[in-house]
């Protein structure tokens, strides 16, 4: 993929208005901090299954239900609000998608 295209990240939770939103906010902050161009969408399970994105971020329970998603990288969070955990897991995943160090 070209370096100019934003990476598409989807956060998923059960109802689409709770955890997925909280993760999205942290991801937005992280992308800004590391100057990475990305489009972040939060979604519930039903909508998640019909989308093709680069990275999916969710919890273990939810992931079990959306395994069939067409996605390059999957990030599973144990602590949904932890910026530290997000950084530890998402940055390497983004690096792999973009083919460079982030």
């Amino acid at each position, binding site marked *: 993929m070209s370096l100019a295209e934003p990476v598409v990240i989807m956060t998923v*939770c059960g*109802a689409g208005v709770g955890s997925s*939103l*909280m993760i999205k906010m942290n991801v937005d902050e992280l992308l800004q901090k590391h100057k990475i161009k990305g489009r972040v969408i939060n979604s519930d399970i039903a909508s998640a299954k019909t989308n093709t994105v680069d990275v999916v971020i969710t919890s273990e*329970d939810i992931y079990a239900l959306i395994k069939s998603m067409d996605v390059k990288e999957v990030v599973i969070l144990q*602590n949904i609000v932890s910026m530290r955990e997000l950084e530890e897991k998402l940055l390497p995943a983004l690096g792999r998608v973009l083919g460079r160090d982030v």
Partner: protein
Amino acid sequence: MLSDMIGESRIALNAPVKTKEEAITLAGRLLYEDGKVELRYIDAMLELSRELGAYVVIAPGFALPHARPECGAKEAAFSVVTIKDGVSFGSKSNDPVRVVMALAAVDNQSHLTALSELSKFLQEQGSIEAIANSRTEREVVETLRAFEERNER
């Protein structure tokens, strides 16, 4: 502001609940009795909890049950239930849950700020314990207000 969305009347401390269903039902009733959700919203939260397991446990000891807005949410609000010894929600890494905060959201936006504040609050060391150990409803609201003030600076 997060603390504005939590009324003292929607807080139940040291609730005698033994299961996650009881905890979610109580948290839901607190929202319902204050007119923030319809009765069916409680069922919707329980349903999601049955289907999706421990997904509501978003941080160690802390659960955020909620359902889709169209399932009967009337006004954006939170309720708080604390459980002295915690209750199992079936989460591999975050059980037992001592603080349950039910969320009623009416759309994708109105509760955004509150969620963002909640997210930051939960990342602070000892914040969940502070709520779990609160002895009065006012203490819960004060803890949140103090956090908000710290962050405004």
